């Protein structure tokens, strides 16, 4: 019985308390004063960031420490990922406030549910036992299901939520089945003890391999990589764009952390087995994601397929099982979340009068309507395509380099070839914006915080690209590479 230093979970406590506070405060607010909810949510994120960044309330600064009988771990990877989760959730809130107001859906539920999802993200990032991983995941999933169905009168939204719910529950079931097998083989839920037990049992234990297969299937579902990707396009398209913006950015970082904790911390002795399984997922995702995205006319759907290929790249970083590979994967997932937030933010910006600008054609001639926003979108698209100087290029480059270092030449070749294929549909957007005639002449207008956030987000694509070395160094240092 050793709960350790419970204050290690101080950021989690803070987010939980504030989510409950917002839930209560909303009851006492009239419709006109709901802006307070937004301010409270932003305040929550700022203070969570301060609490996390102080970081020295443990004894050893950056050294990893566990609490709650080893079911919770705090280490530098977790801290960095949490800080970026706050940042990106802050962007999501600024973008979605504008969007929710426009669609008359500005209710406190969005904020409470997404704060609870953030709590799930934080727990998943800091999970050190199978139970914490599962509970964190369920917290994210439950909140996301409700957020997808947030627009209650939309048929598409309800359908998407239903699909998401059924497939997500099945994935959770798979994950639990795998966890139960791992538990059966090792007799412990703690990831470090599992690692010790696995090295004792040896890597040719049938039970462990079976458990691993189910774990990887569950993980692949949650990350949304081929062949477990069927829900991604429908959910991204059907959900209100504010929700899509959320589920396409923040939870992906948690999914990366979960993959790392399960596969590397817990089952690193089975690296030979899981890297084989993951390499299949990676190749299929990169190929199918990029090819299917070309055929889309709905930009939400196109970005969904692009997510699938991006998640393939993230997994490719995990594949070699080396410290530099994990660092590359982490850098990729952070960069991806920022790009994704900016891209969906642009969709929100173009949406007007209660109609989502989710057709690719809505971007036609954006340069003539507003050249700065066109430039922002162009920077995001260049970054997603992996054009040099932009940050997306460095992300892809690091991941591919990690694969090359591990001798996975064929994988690197597939990744490069299909990145080039993928560049087509990103650059098509740029072409539409600069060389086509606009379909609508409507003025693009947004509140000042929105304009500042989207501009900053766009400039980050370029700025982080030029000054990428410090962020890369932070990511690499998290894994001691």
């Amino acid at each position, binding site marked *: 019985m050793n709960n350790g230093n419970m204050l290690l979970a101080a950021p989690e406590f803070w987010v939980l308390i504030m989510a409950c506070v917002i839930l209560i405060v909303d009851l006492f607010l009239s419709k006109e004063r709901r802006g307070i909810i937004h301010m409270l949510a932003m305040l929550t994120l700022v203070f969570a960031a301060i609490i996390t960044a102080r970081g020295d309330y443990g004894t050893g600064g950056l050294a990893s420490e566990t609490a*709650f*009988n080893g079911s919770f771990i705090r280490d530098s990877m977790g801290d960095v990922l949490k800080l970026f989760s706050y940042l990106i959730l802050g962007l999501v809130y600024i973008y979605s406030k504008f969007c929710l107001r426009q669609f008359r859906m500005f209710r406190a539920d969005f904020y409470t*549910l997404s704060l*609870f999802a953030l709590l799930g993200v934080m727990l998943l990032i800091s999970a050190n036992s199978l139970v914490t991983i599962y*509970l964190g995941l369920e917290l994210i999933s439950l909140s996301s299901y409700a957020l997808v169905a947030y627009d*209650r009168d939309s048929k598409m939204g309800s359908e998407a939520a239903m699909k998401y719910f059924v497939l997500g529950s099945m994935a959770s079931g798979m994950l639990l089945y795998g966890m139960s097998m791992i538990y059966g083989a090792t007799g412990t839920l703690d990831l470090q003890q599992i690692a010790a037990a696995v090295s004792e*049992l040896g890597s040719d*234990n049938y039970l462990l391999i079976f458990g691993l297969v189910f774990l990887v299937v569950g993980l692949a579902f949650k990350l949304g990589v081929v062949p477990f990707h069927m829900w991604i396009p429908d959910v991204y398209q059907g959900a209100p764009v504010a929700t899509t913006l959320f589920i396409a950015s923040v939870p992906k970082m948690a999914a990366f952390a979960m993959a790392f904790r399960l596969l590397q911390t817990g089952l690193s002795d089975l690296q030979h087995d899981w890297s084989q399984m993951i390499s299949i997922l990676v190749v299929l995702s990169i190929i199918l994601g990029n090819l299917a995205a070309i055929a889309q006319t709905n930009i939400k759907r196109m970005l969904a397929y692009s997510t699938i290929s991006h998640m393939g790249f993230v997994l490719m970083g995990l594949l070699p099982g080396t410290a530099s590979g994990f660092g590359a994967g982490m850098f990729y997932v952070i960069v991806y979340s920022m790009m994704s937030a900016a891209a969906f933010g642009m969709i929100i910006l173009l949406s007007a009068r209660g109609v989502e600008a989710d057709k690719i054609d809505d971007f036609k001639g954006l340069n003539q309507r507003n050249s700065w926003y066109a430039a922002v979108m162009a920077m995001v698209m260049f970054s997603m395509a992996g054009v040099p100087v932009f940050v997306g290029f460095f992300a892809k480059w690091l991941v591919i380099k990690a694969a090359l270092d591990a001798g996975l030449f064929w994988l690197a070749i597939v990744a490069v070839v299909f990145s080039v294929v993928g560049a087509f549909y990103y650059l098509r957007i740029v072409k539409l914006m600069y060389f086509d005639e606009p379909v609508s002449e409507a003025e693009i207008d947004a509140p000042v915080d929105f304009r500042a956030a989207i501009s900053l987000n766009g400039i980050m694509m370029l700025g982080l690209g030029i000054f990428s070395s410090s962020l890369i160094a932070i990511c690499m240092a998290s894994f001691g590479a």
Partner: protein
Amino acid sequence: MPIYEIVFYVFSLVMLGGAVMVITVRNPVYAALSLVLTFFSASAIWMLLEVEFLAIILILVYVGAVMVLFLFVVMMLDINVDPLKEGFIRYLPAGIVVALLMAGELLVVMWSKGRFEAGSYPIPAASPVEYSNTKAVGELLFTEYLLAFEVAGIVLLVAIIAAVALTLRQRPGGHRQNPSLQVRVQRDERVRLVKMKPEPRQGS
């Protein structure tokens, strides 16, 4: 044969029978009731293992709450089950393949070395008379699994919030009470004193 073996076999047989009934009977209400029977027998077997707390919880939660709710849904929604059973023959081959795979997996798991071997579980010694199951479970929940316990509570809270957020609708023409207004009401708003001339009694 000792008495507990007889009890074990009787309840296991009833449980298996109940489980088979769940998927074979046509009427969904009977299926739900068979599931209740299955849970009941399982709880009896747990009783045999001296885990009284979990046995009672199984009955309280699954039989008392979940299955009753399930019965409500089945009865109120009037689901026509016949369309659900269409294509039984068509999906049979795929079903058999999946069933065989699962059975094979289970066999592999049971035969693999490690904790699932029968030998790794000796018959536990009977606990002393004053041993409290509930206390042991509670102690574990609030010490070793504290974080998991709390997070499970948060998951339930989110479920409530999500359910309310998705279903609460305030209809424009709905009649709702406003307690605050009701309390603050003044006499003048409700009672109107009318002066009337006295009328002569009728019929006199």
